[in-house]
């Protein structure tokens, strides 16, 4: 395939207080083998060379694991491909002459810091509220094998634990609900014996913090599960619901 020429519609916003707007840019000679963020690098190099401010976007590992990159591309979190983050999206998903709309995550709990960068501290505060097992880090714990855990439970906990905290679930949810994110963490510990002691307090505190941050309510549309780059299952939300009901009945 020949290289592509594209029109980009990108949200530009100077800082958290400024009013933003969509701005059009053109990029030319984009190879299909480029990653989406490499295409953004090309645009930025172009902007720097012409004396304009480059577009600010979050990214770091560029291999789909750190959870730093975001971007709502053509109306979808992490763009049109599945099971990947934006940094793993490749330009072969687009065609010559396409117009690509690029926006930041939108949610009241994710305010824009600049251009395409949002503030995800709300996720951090939810984790502070209970995303841990209260064990000292002295190393004077019992031997790792003194607590057998069924392979099934360990595997399921692992599946929940693969969440990278990118926020695609919130961005994609029509209600800006964070339940997939919170459900994944609650589930990881709920599935393991180590997490049982604090299970009731953990789910109560994390849900309370989630509500306080202004995330919306889950209406089970399932969009989060589809857009999640790590395939975190909706079952984790169901499990969190059960955990909270259990905690409430205690």
């Amino acid at each position, binding site marked *: 395939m020949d290289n592509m020429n594209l029109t980009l519609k990108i949200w530009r916003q100077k800082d958290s207080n400024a009013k933003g707007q969509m701005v059009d840019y053109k990029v030319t000679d984009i190879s299909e083998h480029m990653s989406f963020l490499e295409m953004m690098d090309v645009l930025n190099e172009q902007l720097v060379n012409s004396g304009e401010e480059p577009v600010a976007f979050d990214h770091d590992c560029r291999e789909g694991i750190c959870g730093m990159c975001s971007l709502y591309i053509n109306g979808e979190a992490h763009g049109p491909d599945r099971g990947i983050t934006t940094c793993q999206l490749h330009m072969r998903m687009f065609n010559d002459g396409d117009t690509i709309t690029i926006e930041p995550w939108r949610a009241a709990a994710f305010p824009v810091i600049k251009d395409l960068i949002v503030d995800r501290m709300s996720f951090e505060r939810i984790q502070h509220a209970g995303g841990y097992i209260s064990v000292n880090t002295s190393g004077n714990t019992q031997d790792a094998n003194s607590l057998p855990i069924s392979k099934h439970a360990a595997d399921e906990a692992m599946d929940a634990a693969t969440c990278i905290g990118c926020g695609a679930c919130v961005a994609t949810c*029509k209600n800006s609900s964070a339940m997939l994110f919170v459900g994944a963490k609650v589930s990881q510990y709920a599935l393991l014996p180590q997490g049982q002691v604090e299970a009731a307090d953990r789910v109560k505190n994390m849900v309370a913090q989630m509500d306080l941050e202004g995330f919306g309510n889950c209406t089970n549309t*399932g969009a989060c599960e589809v857009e999640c780059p790590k395939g975190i299952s909706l079952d984790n939300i169901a499990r969190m619901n059960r955990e909270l*009901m259990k905690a409430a009945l205690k």
Partner: protein
Amino acid sequence: MNGFFKSSIGRKVAMALSAFFLMFFLLQHLAINLLSVISPDLFNEVSHFMGTNPLIQFALQPVLIFGVVFHFVMGFILELKNKKANGVAYAKNNGAANSSWVSRNMIWSGIAILAFIILHFIDFWFPEINTKFIKGDWSGTMAGVEGYRYYEELVHKFVNPVRVGAYVVAFVFLALHLMHGFTSAFQSMGGTAGRKKTLQAIGKAYSIFVPVGFIFVALYHFFNH
């Protein structure tokens, strides 16, 4: 329990519980309606029981009204809260890529159903209450005297094609609402993957069977009288 129903998940659970109650009520209502097709007499008998039994009239009926009102009010409250949680709207949003239309538009199918319920109350429930309790006219509700009026009224209502049309449209919306609502309620109550496939099948069957049943009764009487 303190605070549970104030939490987002608690409200979800409350929505699901009221939904279960309403879905059960729909089944019961449909069963009685279907009787009108099978046997007018049986329909009258059962209607009479429902309309005069004190337990149903003074205990279950208020619960039902509360359930309906609660489900609507909570639905609207959550919708407003969710809108607020959204912040700035996307310039481009491709919701169809990751979720069904019905799941994203519960509020609209809900509003359509609300409109129908208002119509339904004006049609059946207000006249009934007015006749029975305000005017104190219990004629047509007593066994043996001049016969029951229930069946006659039912048939009478399904003569006007406009009303039947609205009725059919409303139940199409109900089907859409149930298509997402049924499984959603189970998910909210913590239903998991093991049961998912079966649940989805049952949900689909329910959300088609129930509205189609109501529509069938309406059309049956429309075409037969």
